């Protein structure tokens, strides 16, 4: 029987390819933790041990790295992890109220997962999208910009139906003065 926690031959080949990018095996740790998290959902003790064994590292060292970075989940989380930015620019555009709205709407507090295992709500530090805030990140990847209560409600419904929002570019802002300047000349 296949062990429950293992990398496939294909994944091991990918890890070998990652290792070749760096002069030490240790340096492959972060990319391999990313791989493991994507495969297993979160970094349980067993997954940490698997990663440690794969890279010939001490599990304690691997755990130390996994807990240092906020995007590695060292606890089980919901199917959709909603990271709402409440930092400076998002804060002054009402992100703290949006966080409360999200908590009320889903019936959980910041950091908790809904009983159906669908949503984990977290406030997060700056997501680097200050010009299109308030902003939220889903599952360590997809950004949703210019949030409002209505957009949040709509988003929750979409996710309940299994629909992930598409990647959305934030267009560069218009430069109305350029037309003005070219009409001068």
């Amino acid at each position, binding site marked *: 029987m296949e062990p429950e926690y293992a990398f496939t031959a294909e994944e091991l080949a990918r890890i070998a390819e990652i290792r070749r*990018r*760096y*002069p*030490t095996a*240790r*340096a*492959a*740790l*972060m*990319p391999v*933790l*990313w791989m493991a998290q994507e495969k297993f959902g979160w970094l349980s003790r067993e997954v940490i041990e698997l990663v440690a064994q794969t890279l010939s590292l001490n599990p304690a060292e691997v755990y*130390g*790295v996994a807990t*240092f*970075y*906020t*995007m*590695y989940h060292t606890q089980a989380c919901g199917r959709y992890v909603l990271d709402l930015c*409440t*930092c*400076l*620019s998002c*804060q*002054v*555009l009402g992100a703290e109220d949006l966080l409360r709205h999200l908590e009320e709407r889903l019936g959980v507090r910041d950091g908790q997962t809904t009983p159906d295992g669908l949503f984990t709500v977290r406030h997060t*530090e*700056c*997501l*680097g*999208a*200050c*010009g*299109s*805030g308030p902003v939220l*990140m889903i599952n*360590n*990847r*997809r*950004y949703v910009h210019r949030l409002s209560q209505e957009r949040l409600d709509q988003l929750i419904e979409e996710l309940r139906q299994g629909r992930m929002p598409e*990647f959305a*570019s*934030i267009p*560069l*802002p*218009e*430069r109305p*003065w*350029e037309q*003005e*300047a070219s009409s*001068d*000349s």
Partner: protein
Amino acid sequence: MEWKRYRALLLPPIPNLRDISVYEAHGGYEALRRVLTDPAWSPERLIEEVKASGLRGRGGAGFATGLKWSFMPPPDGRPRYLCVNGDESEPGTFKDRQILEYNPHLLIEGALLAAYAIRASAIYVYIRGEYADWIDRFEEALEQARARGYVGARICDTDFGVAFYVHKGAGAYICGEESALMESIEGKRAYPRQKPPFPAQRGLWGRPTTINNVETLANVPLIVRHGAQWYSRIGAPKHPGPILYGISGHVNRPGVYELPSGMPIETLIYEIAGGVRGGKRLKAVIPGGSSTPPLRADQIAGITMDAESLRAAGSMMGTAGMVVLDEDTDMVRVLLRIAEFYHHESCGQCTPCREGTGWLVKILRRIAQGEGKPSDLDLLLQICDQMEGRTICALADAAAWPVRHTVQRFREEFEARCRPSLVAVPETIPS
């Protein structure tokens, strides 16, 4: 006004510029080809050209880029590295993401030129993990560059070759600090290293390394293409070049605007970003990311966005990520949230930072909840004294500066929150 005629070079409005064919059709990779194939362009000449341009780093510290490159020791046949800092995490800063999406080849070309100048054998681009969708886009561009022979061995049929990798972060602001970034690439907790030795002496895996910000490197092809003299005439004399101003907060048109350095703050707010939202009055401006001291509305007249002018005004250029706050902004809550950010992001290595950031949060939370004491304001400043300049890296400074200057510049607002309530509950109910 001169700025109205400025045409964007870092983020030009060219559709599909991230496609390598479009980039090449607009002169892309010509600077790289010229430098690699013209014998006049030795690595030393390229460093001199960048020095002459006056380019200063765009990651926050504003150090002279050519000078930084010149710190690399002579090659000894062993590996040496270029790191590209795309960790951008300081609240108010969101410019590098736009380069990754709209003009990734400019960054790739700039990084290749820098690698040639410092004779690096490998380039590691560290991009914050939250930018997963943008990392994918950047990697697509990198694959295109690889397929056209701009990355790998014998670039442009010359003897120059360099490996080029993307390293994805996993959520830690401290990784933007250069030595912490190197620790993170090495697969460790991102604890900043003691300096000296500086990265040029002992960097990644102990080898000579140079670290430059994404926007900084995107400027390099422009310098080669148009010449140092042309470049140094853009914007402020001592801090020249195009700048990506990220404007956020209470403005009508937030976003990333590319304009010459030295733009007046008032022009950025009122003419470029469309003024304060809802026609309200301005209260404060944080000029270059959350660590830069805020300026009161009455302090910004005539102040321009360059290191010299902002230093004279009692602030800093930082990343040019400007946060605009209107008259209704509660400065106590804003400062509390900034302090919470630095407390969360302190790596915990140095006691003054680990403990100091926690104390700042605790006291500011008390004040925000109406339970502050008048003596708390001086206590906050004393804690800042114990933090600034007493730690391995500058995170403690970055945490202390906004506290010190916000408390000093908006003191009345903080004092008002520390006074006992005037509507205290009477001991007996009057009949």
